[in-house]
């Protein structure tokens, strides 16, 4: 069980989160949405315990994928996946092989990460998260850089992961992905949670947070001004 209660934080003199209560549930794919600067990534980091003043969960149980995660060196995809075993202090090959297969990068295992496309890098980084075999997955924009088909397949995979009893929290900019795949949509705006519930029912609140119109035809999409 992870979560934050009445959590506030200031970063660089700006209040990024203001009295936030949030706990993701096992077996659910929870999406965090909201405009830039709403505090989504910060909330994810708070759950992960990597912000000052947040409790540190067991790194074997909770895995985190940073926004736009890159590797400093030209390591192979397999080496990247093995980094997910650091919390366990082992180099067990089976979970890594499973993780590479899950993320769909088994065939790229020997390729250097700095020679891959953005989408392939994202999948390799996901393989690293899966290799930890965590109970809680905290993923910041896991579908950025992915084409629609790849984004759908990753979201489906995360949905299956949640259905298997894991806790999955995803920061998403693409609201339609949240509508299609998430069990729960949490809308953040200016450091506070403005809506939290079944994705489709939260759409008006999401539209308000983004400052966009909401389709009156009943179709679940946001309209430009």
């Amino acid at each position, binding site marked *: 069980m992870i979560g934050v209660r009445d959590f506030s934080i200031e970063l660089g003199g700006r209040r990024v989160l203001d009295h936030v209560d949030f706990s993701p549930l096992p077996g659910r794919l929870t999406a965090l949405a909201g405009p830039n600067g709403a505090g989504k990534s910060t909330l994810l980091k708070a759950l992960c315990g990597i912000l000052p003043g947040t409790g540190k969960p067991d790194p074997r149980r909770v895995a985190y994928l940073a926004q736009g995660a890159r590797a400093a060196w030209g*390591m192979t995809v397999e080496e990247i996946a093995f*980094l997910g075993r650091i919390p366990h202090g082992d180099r067990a090959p089976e979970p890594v092989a499973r993780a590479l297969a899950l993320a769909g990068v088994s065939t790229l295992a020997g390729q250097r990460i700095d020679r891959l496309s953005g989408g392939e890098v994202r999948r390799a980084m996901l393989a690293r998260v899966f290799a930890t075999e965590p109970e809680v997955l905290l993923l910041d924009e896991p579908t950025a850089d992915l084409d629609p088909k790849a984004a759908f397949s990753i979201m489906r995979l995360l949905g299956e992961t949640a259905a298997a009893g894991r806790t999955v929290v995803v920061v998403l900019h693409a609201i339609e992905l949240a509508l299609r795949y998430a069990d729960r949509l949490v809308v953040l705006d200016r450091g506070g949670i403005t809506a939290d519930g079944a994705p489709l029912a939260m759409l008006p609140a999401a539209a308000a947070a983004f400052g966009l119109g909401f389709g009156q035809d009943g179709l679940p999409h946001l309209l430009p001004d």
Partner: protein
Amino acid sequence: MIRLFVLGLALLFAASLLVGSAGVGLPAPVILWQLRLPRTLLALLVGGGLGVSGAALQGALRNPLADAGLLGISGSAALGAVIAFYWGFAAAFAPALPLSGMLGAGLGAAALLALAGRAPTGPSLILAGIGLSAAAAALLAFALALAPNPYALAELTFWLLGGVADRTLSDCALAAPPIVLGVVILLRLGAGLDALSLGEETAASLGVSTARTMRGVALGTALAAGAAAAAAGGVGFVGLVVPNVLRPRLGERPAVLLLPSALAGAALLLAADILVRIAVLVLPLNAEPPLGVLTALIGAPFLVVIARRLGQ
């Protein structure tokens, strides 16, 4: 792979005992014990310490240009050692030399990490290192200008050029404990350096403390590179060259490079020290060229090659 390195080191070790600036062959016992063995052991220690320091610094700072020499850590160590020379501490109390070298290196490494700020990567770190190098070089020049007599000045200058010739087994005994301890500390940082390659936040999520890893690198480097500089003077570029040569062969994961960099650093410095002795045999020189001059001549063009590769 490791076995191959060890075999190569053993061959170089034997060659180093057999090659002298007066000729090649089994030397008289007194030469073997008092000249060849000390310089061979010291080359192994210094090369190993500098090699693994380079690999650890590059891993910690996520920058292939990081090196104890380029970042001014060796310069700070040399300054510490020169101060010990200059004020006569080293003459009064032999361990003062490696101790002040380590102290200088430790202060240099700490200043560097502080100057470069919270996220010591990329240009800010290299610039901080240039600043530290310049400050250490200026203070060194100041100490030299104040040298009490021409003999002291000549001795200091010769020592600064770098080398492992004319050392005794007791010099080795002074240098060995801190270098070995520093190497052991750095070799144990593999998982932390691997995690850091994904950035500080991801490392933290994997249960790795950046601050603790950085402290380990600073301490290990201060011990290994500091004592190496105190024992061998200004031998540069080993820590820069070795990991960069190994990377295309062994892969770029930081932990994979640590032990091979120690072994290859030892091999490189030993080979270079054999080469300066052969240089006297085959070239019209009346003395061995300083070892530090040879490593700089190898290392400087190499720096340009890395810079070009980075630019691509």
